[in-house]
Each structure stands twice: as C-alpha cells, then as structure tokens.
C-alpha cells in the first residue's frame, strides 16, 4: 500500500484517487479511503498499532513456519529452562517451548477477537438502527434491554454466562459476545437519530422505499465507520477479558496455548521461574496495546467528532 509512492505508476493512481470530480462511485469511495489513509499514515503511534496488528495476523497465519517446536510437545527432561538459543523464551513446567506456544497462542487470540467482533457488531448495529429508526415502543423496549446488559460489569456477566454454559473457548467467545454488543447498539442508535431526519432519507422515503430498505441500505452503511472505531478500541478489552477467563481456567482449556491460561500455569512457579508467567503477559500487553493504538488512530481519521472521549 505505502509502496505505491515508489511505483512509477503511482502518480497516475494518486491523481485518479484524489480527483475532484470522480467518474464513478467506486472512484469516489476509494479516493476518500486514500485521503483517510494519508491522514492515518502521518500518525506514528497509529502506524505502530497497525504494525502490531498486522504482525499478529502474520504470526497467526504462518505459525507452523515460525514456531520451532510443536506447542504441545512435552519434553519433561527440559522443563523450566531459562532463555537459551534452543528455547528463546525458555520452557514451561511440562518442558514445552514457550516461544512456540506464544506463536500458536496468537491464533487463539485472533480467533477470539474476530469471532466476538463478527457476532457482537452486527447484533449491536441491527438493534441500534432498528431502535433509532422505528422509535416509539420498539425503541424503548430495545434500549431497555440494552441498558440491562450494560448494568452488569462485562467480566462478571461473562463469568456467570461461562459458568452456565461450561468452560471452553467457544463458550467464552459466546459469553464475551453477549456482553459486548450493548455499546454498539447505543452508538448505532445515536448515529441513526442524527441521520433519520435528513433530507436524503425523506427523499428515499418519498420514492417509496420501505423501512427495511431504508435501515439496511441507507442508514446502516453510515453507522459503520463509528462502529469500526469502537470495535477496534474494544478489541483490547476483549483480549483482556478472554485472557482473564483463561487465567481463571474458564476460557481455552489445556493443552491449548492460550496466553491467559499460560500465565495461570506459570503462577505456580512464579518466584523461581519468573519467565513462565511473564512472557505470555508481555504478549497480551503488546497485542492489546496495538489494538488500542490502532483504534485511537482510526478514531482520529474516521470519527473526529468523538476525539478524546473514551
């Protein structure tokens, strides 16, 4: 993407993207994206966040090529070793290579974050836009339900849900998704309220478009950018909650190399073999920092109105 600057054809692309009179919708859309990218690019912290997130994705995809060992291979003779050339981050209490487990653990982290986002964001979007556009008692009922879910602290509700569903990574994902959608519904509703009385919506309505069509193809697309910002900012929190569930033994189950569960097992040998618990914590920290920085950067570009607000 950024290498376009060195490309001889780049200036042509640039002109096409920045054209003041785009010939097609696609050109206009891509042009706006390009301008947003230019603004994003000038923010070093946001670029660092993007770098971390891209690195996470690459590590997760190429885990088998990067990891020197099988993450679950136990070599009891080599247990609890300090950093060495053979084991860059040492080994855990079952002689498993911590580096390989961290590398494979990135897959679980990404899996959790992506699935939670795919489940929670559309639910929030649907609830929020429907409540906002239809108004009246639909709005009251939906928002009341949203408020009820907001009345629980996220982690505590997730704990109670996992206790009902049973421990495991899928149930942890469902529990986190159930606790994550209400803020998205709030945002989508607020956006919808500002859009619903605009002239272009009235115009669409006069042309005979039904409510479903208006919500689906005219309101939802306009809510997505603030939603994307919020989801990205939430991903750090999702990672922390998933790690917390793993730490408590309620998320991913052994022998899965989930980072929170790895900290939990390292806790038993904390005093003498500090690295077993320390290294996975640093991995969690770096990844959630990456999502926080990326989210902050995206907010500045896509949603400058809400700058500075948590």
């Amino acid at each position, binding site marked *: 993407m950024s290498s376009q600057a060195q490309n001889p054809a780049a200036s042509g692309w640039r002109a096409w993207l920045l054209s003041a009179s785009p010939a097609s919708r696609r050109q206009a859309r891509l042009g706006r994206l390009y301008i947003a990218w230019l603004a994003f690019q000038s923010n070093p912290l946001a670029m660092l966040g993007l770098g971390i997130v891209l690195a996470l994705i690459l590590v997760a995809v190429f885990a088998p090529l990067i990891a020197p060992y099988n993450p679950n291979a136990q070599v009891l003779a080599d247990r609890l070793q300090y950093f060495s050339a053979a084991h860059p981050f040492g080994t855990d209490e079952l002689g498993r290579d911590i580096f390989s487990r961290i590398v494979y653990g990135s897959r679980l982290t990404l899996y959790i974050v992506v699935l939670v986002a795919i489940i929670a964001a559309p639910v929030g979007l649907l609830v929020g836009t429907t409540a906002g556009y239809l108004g009246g008692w639909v709005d009251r009922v939906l928002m009341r339900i949203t*408020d009820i879910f907001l*009345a629980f*602290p996220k982690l505590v509700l997730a*704990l109670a849900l996992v206790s009902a569903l049973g421990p495991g990574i899928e149930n942890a994902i469902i529990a986190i998704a159930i606790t994550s959608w209400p803020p998205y519904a709030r945002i989508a509703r607020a956006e919808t309220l500002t859009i619903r009385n605009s002239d272009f919506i009235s115009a669409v309505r006069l042309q005979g478009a039904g409510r479903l069509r208006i919500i689906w193809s005219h309101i939802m697309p306009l809510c997505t950018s603030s939603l994307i910002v919020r989801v990205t900012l939430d991903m750090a929190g999702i990672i922390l909650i998933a790690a*917390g569930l793993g730490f408590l033994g309620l998320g991913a189950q052994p022998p899965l190399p989930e980072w929170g569960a790895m900290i939990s097992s390292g*806790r038993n040998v*904390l005093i003498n073999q500090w690295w077993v618990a*320390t290294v996975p914590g640093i991995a969690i*920290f770096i990844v959630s920092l990456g999502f926080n920085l990326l989210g902050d950067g995206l907010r500045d570009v896509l949603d400058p109105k809400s700058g500075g607000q948590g």
Partner: protein
Amino acid sequence: MTTPADNLSTAGAGFKSLSLPSPLRTALNLVVSLLLTFLGLLFVTFIIGRVVPIDPVLAIVGDRAPGHVVERVREELGLNRPLYEQFAIYVWDVLQGDLGTSVLTANPVIEDIKRVFPATLELATVATLFGVLLGVPMGVLAGVYAGRWPDQAIRVIGLLGYSIPVFWLGLMGLLLFYARLDWVPGPGRLDFFYDGLVEPVTGVLLIDSAMAGEWDVFWNAASHIVLPAAILGYFSLAYISRMTRSFMLEQLSQEYITTARVKGVKEWRVIWVHALGNVWVPLVTVIALSYANLLEGSVLTEIVFAWPGLGFYLTQSLLNADMNAVLGATMVVGAVFIGINLLSDLLYKLLDPRAR
C-alpha cells in the same frame, strides 16, 4: 401515525430523561427505570440459572436417588411449575434477601456475601483513593502542558493502563516487591498471627483495627493492602487522568481563565483553584464510574492476592459449580453497579446547578 419529530422526542425521553418537565416526574421516571433495570437484572440471572447444565435436583439428592425422591425434591424446589411462576418466586425471594443456600459453604448466600463484601469495598476504596490522588494531578498537568512531554508521558502511562492485564500486573508486582525486594508482605489481608485479633464490626479491617486501638493489626493490614490497591488503582488512574485532562482543556480555553490571568492572579491559582474548581463537578461522575469499574477489576486482583472478597468468593463458587452463590454474587455486583451509576447521576445534578 406519528411524525418522525415526535417519535424522536419520545424516544429521547424514554432513554435518558433529557426533557425535565417537573422534578416529580423526573423522580418517577428514574424510579420506574431503576425498577425495570433491576427486574431485567434478575431476569438475566434467572435465565442463566435455568440454562445451567447442572441439574439442581441431582446436585442435592445425588444421581442414585430413586425416582420418587427426585420428584419430591423437584416439587419442593418449585421446579415443576411454569417458568413465569418460578421467576415470580425468584424475584420475591430476592426482595426478601433470600439468595438461596451455597452448596460450598452451606450458609445462606446473602450471609456469605455480607461477610466477604467489606473486603472488596476496602480494596476498591483504597484503590480509588490512589487513583484520584495521583490521577487528578496528572490529568491537570497533562492538560496544562498539552502536547508537550508531560502530556505525552502521562498519555503513555494511561495507555499502558488500558493494555495491561490486571492479573498479570498483580503477579509481576508480587514477584518484584514481595519475592525480590521484600518491601511488602505476601498475599492475603493479614499475616496469619494477626488473624482473628480484631472483632469484625464493619468488616473493613483498617477501620475495625483503628477503632479497637490495635495499631499493630492496623499497620499490618495497611501493608497488605498497599500493593493490590496500587495495582487496581493504576487502572482507575488511567481513566481518571485521561478524563481530567480533557475537562481541564475545556476549562482552560474559557474566557474567565483569561480574565483571571489578565487580573494578575498567579498561574498556579488559576490552574489549581479556578480551573480545577470547575472540573470537580464532572469529575465526580467519572470517579464514581471508575469506582464501579473497580468492582470488575477486583475479581481478578483478588484471585492473584488471595484477597477474601466478593470476586474471590465468586470465582471459588464458579470453580465448584455452586450456582446459587455465583448468581447471588453476580446479582449483587450488578445491583451495586446500578446503585453507583444512580448515585453519580444524582451527585451530578446536585453539584451542577445547570443540570437541575
């Protein structure tokens, strides 16, 4: 058919009473919405209790009990009635303070919660003090030096608070300050030879020991709370300093600040008295919210520091499949959460004349 405009206004009123026709109506609105939220809270815990795969009857009688015993216990527990009746009974019981009996401790859940809650309250309060005492000055500095290095440094400290897992930071704190440096005592609320020396009156050890004049116990309890409260307080510090900064920026750009400066008021007075004085009002809401959030953070912190509070109780019950205790604790946390949010709303209205 209603017009879009009045649709919008009714939706707004139901959602967050922005239009204030009369104080009485506002109060009524508030009470109704509070009751509905609480009822919803109970409904959620009720549903969670019903989807749980553990059969409460089998948990009592065991899986070898004959059929008629199973039937009788099922009837005694009211599990043969329709769901809405069961829900009504559940609400009625909760309103009377009956949260069922814990399988693990064999006590009524409400008694258990009364016993463990003060420990969480103590931890969260000291943590909030820590967050306010450090977070507010940091936020003020960040606002005054916006864009310069103090602002950047404080921003980084805040960002770290949003990205570090609290349980991991707790473990690292124990490793460094307890195991390596030996500055603080290990996990728990007291060293074991101080245990039971003070009669629990409030359940808050720092208060109980001070009232009893047992200063040995007081200092021991204080040394035990420093590290967990600092770790937990760090997360409220991150939030409080960030919000203080943005409130300060808002105030510092106002004309009365310029006026004060022009009149020759000293700069420290302009910042710490004039500007900060107006920041306190919205800040109260922020502090209350962060206090409520600490309830959540305390779950994991209590595990790491073996702190016998509500979070510790909740997770212990969870790991032992003690559903009455889990749901009771969840319900209490939710209710406290609602209560604190309500309190912060009311405080805001009380302190800010424009919001009345």
